[in-house]
Structure formats: structure tokens, C-alpha cells
């Protein structure tokens, strides 16, 4: 077992993971919004809008 594993992640690694998580959530949010948007656009277009 390495020294790092015994002492836990460094503050740098924690920050790196926190930012990665934030970016992943932002991408997820954008994708979900895009799905909703395309669904709404389809409904409007099919309704002759």
C-alpha cells in the first residue's frame, strides 16, 4: 500500500475530482436540456408552428 493510499487523496487530487464532477454535471445538464428542447421543437413543428 502506498503512502498516498494510507493518507487519502491530496488536496490537489480532491480539487481535480471536484472540478471533473462539476464539468460532468454541466455536460449532463446541457444534454438533458437539449433532449427536452428537441422534444418541444418537434411538438411545435408537428403542430404547424
Amino acid at each position, binding site marked *: 500500500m502506498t503512502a498516498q493510499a494510507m493518507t487519502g487523496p491530496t488536496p*490537489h487530487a480532491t480539487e*481535480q475530482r471536484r*472540478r471533473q464532477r*462539476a464539468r460532468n454535471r454541466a455536460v449532463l445538464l446541457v444534454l438533458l436540456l437539449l433532449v427536452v428542447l428537441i422534444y418541444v*421543437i418537434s411538438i*411545435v*413543428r408537428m403542430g404547424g408552428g
Partner: protein
Amino acid sequence: MSDVAISTETVDVAAPAAGARVADFIELLKPRVMSLVVFSGFAGLMVAPGDLHPVLAAVAVLCIAVGAGASGAINMWYDRDIDAIMQRTRRRPLPAGRVDPQEAVSFGIVLAIGAVTLMAVAVNWLAAGLLAFTIAFYVFVYTMWLKRRTPQNIVIGGAAGAFPPMIGWAAVTGQISLASVALFLLIFMWTPPHFWALALYRTGDYAKAGVPMLPVVAGARATKRQMLVYTVLLLPLALAPWALGLTGVVYAAAAAVLGLLFVLAAVRVWLDEGERAARQMFAFSILYLFLLFTLLIVDRAPGLIGGSLA
């Protein structure tokens, strides 16, 4: 050029390796520039004759916003070397080393393709084509070709910022008409005095970075003369929407007053040997365009003031 390379590398080496924050990607979109582009695009959409479903209108505005942001991101990627030199831009995500250049350019390209595709699918092909042309013009003609080569960079390149009202108009009508060209010309003629006001008090920055802005190449006096010419030309041009029957007399009167104030600002810059008048003119130029397009919208809205909606 070596100075540029050294500066960029120095900043990149000092970059935090924790990765970019979401806020850094938002900063790549140049939100402040985007807001004026979105507003002028929205104005084009509002004053155009015809109807567009509110959802599709909102999608059109979103596409204009994302397209503008994509252009900004690609511009920041290409200009990261000179951005690292200039005081005004050195804290941007790329020169500060907070975002990887490849990520930035990929981000911009994906957004640009997404915005144009969505515009084509949801609104119409003409609006999508104009949006694609605008992005391409800003990236290839202004950023990559003109910006570092000629003092007329923002005169010709300013066309990119002038297209949004035309895109908004095309989203509603599916056409390019004389009135939408007038809206284009309005921003086109407004851009040089707006940017030169900024360049007048950032001359040192631009000179250091090797960007041939007019004050750097031709000097302050010649720049101030050209600013005055453009503001005088803009004065009658701002009345074109009224002359073309797009708006009522309220818009015409207000546009004339705003135009005179803009000319007055240019005269003050001409007379002022310092930076104060140029700073004030830069701030006023933003207010001028914002108020002018607000007036266009208000004067066209049925039931409000003129209510001249055809």
C-alpha cells in the same frame, strides 16, 4: 514573435493542473459580447413582419447566442498568444492556462455546429446559413485574416457583429429585405467608432501585441477624425428604419437625439488630448446601440407608443 511565444509558454507552465472550472468554459463564450449580439438578434426578430412561434423564436435567439459564444471561444483559442501580452486579456482562461487550447477550440467548433444545425432544424435554412456565415466570417475573415494584418480590421470584420439582426429577421420572414440590410448597416457603421474609442486608451496594449489597430498605425488624430466621420454617417443611417416605414416617429426622434449625442461624444474625443473622452465614448457607444434597438422593439410593439406593427 518570440516574445509572444515566451509569454504564452510561461503562463501555460504555471497553469493549475486541476483542470478547468465550468466558469472558465462560460468565460470562453465572451458573455458580455454575447449579450449585445443576442439583444440585436432579438430586436431583428421582434421588428420583422410576420409571426414565429414563441418557442421557435426562443430557439432562434438561443442559436444566435450559442453561435456568438462559439465564435468567441474559437477567437480566444486563435488569439491566445496576443491575449497573453495584453493587459486587458491576459487573465482570460487560455492565456492564464486554466483551459487547454485543444479543449477550447473543440468546445467552440462543437457549439458552432450545434447552433447552426439546431437553427436549420427548428427555424429555417436561411437563418442557419446566415448564422454559419457569420461564425465563419468572424473566425476566418476577422480573427485569422484581418485582425493582425490591417488597421481596417474592425471596419470589415465588424460585419460579423452586424449580422445578428439580419439572422433574427430571416428567422421570422425567411428572407433578406432592405429593412434587415438597414439594421445590418446600422451596427456595421457603429462598430468602428465603438472599437476605436477602446483602442485609443489601449493603444499601448495593442502596440505591444503587434495588433495594427488604427491608433497604433495612423495615430490618435487620424483615428479621432475617422470616428467623427463614422458617427456623422451613422446619424442619418439610424433613421433608415423610420424612412423604410419600419418604425414610427417616436423612434425617429429618439434616434436623432441619440445620434447627435454620439456625434457630440466623437467631437469631445476630437478635442480631448487625454483618455477620458474616449473612455466615456466607449461606454456611451454601448448604451447608444442598446437604447436604439430597445426603441426599435418598443416602437414596433403593438399597443406601445407607435404600435406601428404592420
